[in-house]
Each structure stands twice: as C-alpha cells, then as structure tokens.
C-alpha cells in the first residue's frame, strides 16, 4: 500500500507539471485561437536561460531563475505574440500551427547549437530527502512540485475570478466583439494571456528540469503530453487542463509500475483515443463553451 501512495504522489507531481503546460495551451486557445506546437520547447528554453545566467553571468540560482522568468516573459510572451502570432493568425489557425512547428525546430536546434546535444545538470528546488506522512515516505522534491503548482494554479484562478483584469480576460475569451463594445481593451487582455503562458512554462521548466536534466530535446515529449492533457481534460477549461495533466501523470506512473514499462508511452495516447471516442469535448470541457 505504501508503494501505491508513493506512486500516486510521484505521478501527481509529474502530472502537475504537465498541467501547468496544458493550462498555457488552453489559455492561448481560448483568447486567441492559438495552438502553440512550440509549447514543449517553451518549457525547454527557460532552463537554458537559468543555466546561462548562472554560467555566463555568474549569478546565484534564485537570481538566475528570476532573470529566466523575465526573459521568458519578454521572449516567449511579448515577442512571440507580436512577431509570430499577430502576423500569422490573420491567415487562419493552420498557418499559425505550422509556424509554431517551425519555431519549435528553430528553438531546439538553436539550443543544440549553443549548448550542444549533451544534457546539462540543473539544480533541484529542494533537498533530496524524504518526509514521512502517516507512515509513508514521500520525496520532498515531489511534494515541493505539488505545492508550487497548487499555489500557482490557485493564484491564477484568483486572478482570473477575483480581479477586474481577470474578469475582463474572461469576457474577452467568451466574446471578444461584445467585450470590445463594452470598452475592454481586448488586445491588451490577449497579450496578458501570452504573458501568463510564458510565466507558466518558465515555472514548469524550473520544476521539471531537475528531473529531466536540461536538454535541447526535452520539449518533444513535454509538449505532446501537455497537448494530450489539454484535450483529455477539455481544451476550453483551465480546470480541465489541470485534471488532464494530473490524470496523465498518475496513469503513466501506475502503468510503468503495474502494467509494462515498455508500453507506458502508449498510455497517454490510449487515453486520448478513448476520450475522443466517448467524450470529444474532454472530461471537463463543454461543447461550444469558451471561458478562461
């Protein structure tokens, strides 16, 4: 039974990271119909910003993390929207999707060029120790990932539901035309979602890289898992992305432990197929509904 709870917590920790990335997917989709296939690479890149700040600029880890957040928000938030999404979205969703695939390749190869194809070490957020809860030993690092993610999602929900800007963003997502008639600066609200997405991927990067190590190819699986999580949970619901991410993480861990390590990679795809067949709007998604 101890194994069960340890696997559950480890799976939730991994799933929480998928959820952060998946939430970014849903936010961008709801406000700007942007499907960002470079989302995985968006998670891969901030870790290298941290390493650059630590190695090249000789900054301590926490300063490097803050610097990486700032750079991510500018590059992956503001510049991504201004230089890629705005010009491409006028031509429809498909050209933008292709453009983000190209961006993913560019980012991946760019990192490989500057940092080589070798993995790089990355500092952990917490010490590698266990804590005993009700007689079951849990890894502190997994608990830290869960707590940080819970706080981040909680703050995001509070921001969206309890602040004026958050409600304006929801209005923009529900109906941009009416929002504009009501005097809401729609463009600025959309920009905010890009900034939030950039912050979420930077956070996911800092949480996942101590486990995955910093490597140019990290985005491939992360992006796919998060995309599947968003679809499984419901592409039009933040809470759907959260549930989808957690579900994928837990199922992946249990599959590896109790079914087959060889077939664990197939499990997310299997879940995706089942959800698309029996509940195409996702577990918590709603048909034709658009809210942030």
């Amino acid at each position, binding site marked *: 039974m*101890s*194994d069960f709870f*340890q*696997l559950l917590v*480890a*799976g939730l*920790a*991994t799933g929480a990271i998928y959820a952060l990335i998946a939430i970014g997917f849903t936010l961008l989709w709801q406000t700007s119909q942007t499907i960002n296939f470079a989302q995985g690479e968006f998670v891969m890149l901030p870790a290298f910003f941290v390493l650059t700040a630590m190695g090249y600029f000789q900054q301590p880890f926490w300063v490097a993390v803050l610097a990486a957040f700032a750079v991510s928000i500018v590059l992956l938030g503001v510049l991504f929207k201004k230089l890629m999404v705005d010009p491409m979205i006028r031509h429809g969703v498909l050209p933008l999707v292709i453009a983000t695939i190209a961006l993913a390749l560019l980012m991946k190869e760019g990192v*490989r060029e500057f940092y*080589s*194809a*070798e*993995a*790089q*070490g990355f500092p*952990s957020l917490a010490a*590698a*120790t*266990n804590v005993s809860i009700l007689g079951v*030993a849990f*890894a502190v*690092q*997994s608990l830290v990932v869960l707590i940080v993610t819970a706080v981040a999602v909680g703050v995001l929900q509070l921001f969206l539901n309890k602040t004026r800007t958050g409600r304006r963003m929801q209005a923009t997502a529900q109906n941009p035309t009416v929002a504009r008639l009501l005097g809401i600066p729609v463009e600025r609200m959309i920009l905010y979602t890009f900034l939030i997405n950039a912050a979420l991927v930077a956070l996911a990067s800092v949480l996942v890289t*101590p*486990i*995955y*190590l910093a*490597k140019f*190819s*990290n985005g491939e*699986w992360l992006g796919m898992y998060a995309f599947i999580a968003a679809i499984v949970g419901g592409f039009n619901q933040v809470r759907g992305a959260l549930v989808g991410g957690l579900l994928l993480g837990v199922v*992946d*861990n*249990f599959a*590896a*432990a109790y079914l087959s*390590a*060889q077939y*664990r*990679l197939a499990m997310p795809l299997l879940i995706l197929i089942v959800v698309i067949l029996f509940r195409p709007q996702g577990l918590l998604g709603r048909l034709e509904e658009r809210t942030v």
Partner: protein
Amino acid sequence: MKKMIVAAAFAVVFSTTAFAQGTVKFADVVEISGGGAVVGSNWKNAIDLAVSEINAKGGLLGKKIEVTHYDTQTNPGVARAQVQKALDGDPYVLFGPVYSGSAIVTQALAKQNEIAEFTGGEAANLTEQKNPYIFRTSFGQQFAMPKIANYMRDVVKAKKVAVFWCNDDFGKGGRDTFIKEAKARGIEIVADLSSENGQADFAADVVKAKGSGADAMFIYLHEEENARLLRELRKQSVAVPLIGETTLLNQKVIELAGDAANGIKGHVGLSADAPIPQIQEFRKKYEERFKSVPDHNALKGYIGVYAVKYATEKIGKFDRKALAEKMKGLKITVAEEPGILMDVTWDKNGDLDRISFLAEVINGQQKITQTLPALGGS
C-alpha cells in the same frame, strides 16, 4: 589525346581513394546527436586528438590522416546509412559506432567491404557474429559482468539485487549476462526493471525497486539515463549500495547527477582517473583542448586510433585485409606504443584483454580503489 584523357581519368579515380595525395582516410560513424551525444562527443574528440598528434609527428607511414565524422543520431537505421555513406568515400578503416544497437547493424557492412571496424560497443553479441573485421576498444560484457558479480558477492555481500537496465542491445546483453553470473553465485534477482532510451522519469521504477527488498541495486543504463535514475534514487532516499559498470561511473554521469552520484561503486574497464601516467597525460591533453574531462568513451576512441597506427606500421602498408588480419592475437605494449595507454591484447574474435579497475565516487570524484589484473595475466 586519348592517353591524356585516360591518365586524367585515372588521376580523378585515384585522387578519391583512401590513400591518395599523401593522405589516408579514416571514417568515424558515431553518436554525435540524439541520446548518445555524450558518448559520441567524447569518442569523436579523442579520435581528433589522436589523429592530430599522429599527423603532427609526420602522419601514418608518411601520410597525413584525414578523418571524417558521420552522425548516427543514435539511431541504428541512420548508423547503417551513414556507414554506407562513409564506405562510399573509400576509407582505410572505420571507427564507431559506440552504441551496441548501431554497431550490430553496421558490422555486416564492414564485413562485406572487408574493412576493419573499431567499435566502442560492449554488448556481448558484437563479437559473436563470426565477423573477422570487428574489433572492440573496450571489454565486452562477457568479460566485465563476472567481475561485477564477484564484487557483488565478495565485497558488497549482496544476497538480493534489483537490476535496472535499458531496453536495447547494450542493456539487454548486460542484463542477461549479469543475471546469469549473479545467479551462478547464489545472488537472487528480486526486481528486473527495464527502461527506454531517453526515459526521463524514473519515479515508478525506483518505487518498485524500493519495494522489492533488494539489499543492492545493479544499474546498467546509458549515461544520461544513469544520471536521471541516480537523482531519482537519491530523491527517494534509497540507501542500499548502487553498483554499476563503466557507464555508471562515467565522468558525465557524475557531473549530471551531482551529489546523487556520491557513493556509487563498480567496475570500470577504462577511466581517466586511472593511476597510470599515460592516461593522466592523455587526460591533461584532452582537457586542455576540449575544456572537459574525458570519459571512458574518449579513451576508447583514442586507443582505437593508436591501435590502427601500430598495426599499420607493423604491416608497413595500407592494406585493409592485412590490417584486420594483423589485429588478431595482437599484443600492444605501452613501451612499444605509448598512445595505447595500457598494455592490451586482442583475441581472434576481436575481444580485448587488459587490466581494469574497481572504483567509487567520493565527493563528486571517481576514485580508483583497486586495479584488477588482465584475465590473460598480461
């Protein structure tokens, strides 16, 4: 006029062969990108180092060595295509790949083209294909695993062992050989955990291993996966001895795993930390040129080039078949060829024999704790 055209045609043809215009071509097909990039970059760098040293001293039989590197992308299919491409360039000798899964599919091409292939692969079956052109640059698993099993029984005193292995030719070969040797010594295998190349999350594997009641764990993965697994093992506070082979105690693994690497122990066939003057000299030169610590794969590549140099000088000509023939049963001593770093003997199958080491990682540094003699006593 006709004679001139024929002469010109001959000149063009021969200018593209392995031995023309005062150069001799070496081809290196290795894992420059993909999951094996750590491995391939060390191997490639060391080959470049050895080649530049030989060229600086007048080359090989008076000809300058020209080495071309081809990237397998850590993919056996690509490796085969790249070896074919390399062979189209008509090289004198072939180096790589290091990954056993790639080496097993490329060696057939080497055999067809009657060219010696010096591989860094360690899977036991690489030298069991009746291929007279394949030569190892490190121990095969059939030589390394009995030493590990003895160490488990005699030093670690392990009775129950959990085995982590990667699901490819290298990992499967190592796993099979280790389990056979361990069982022969009365050691029970209580968890048999396979993982995929590039696997990032080892949480479930470690939970299973912890629950198995193992009093030691044997780890046989590739470098990056080793580092990720070690981090996860420390994250979950696993306290039993962690034992492995050369890849586990690799410099890159120690660097990537950080504190999580402290305390791991095992058998290493090659190590830049070995207390041997020639290896220390090699390490110094490598660090000066590439600004990184060489791992065992670098030593493999370096030794491979010097083995070719020695054998070629012995036969006195560039003859691919003669080179392969000369390698069988060849013993090279450091006194005769310092670049070989340690006295070594190749047998008729292409396997090699030399001294090896037991090592432990202490404070982020690999420390050699014991030197084991060559099986043949050389």
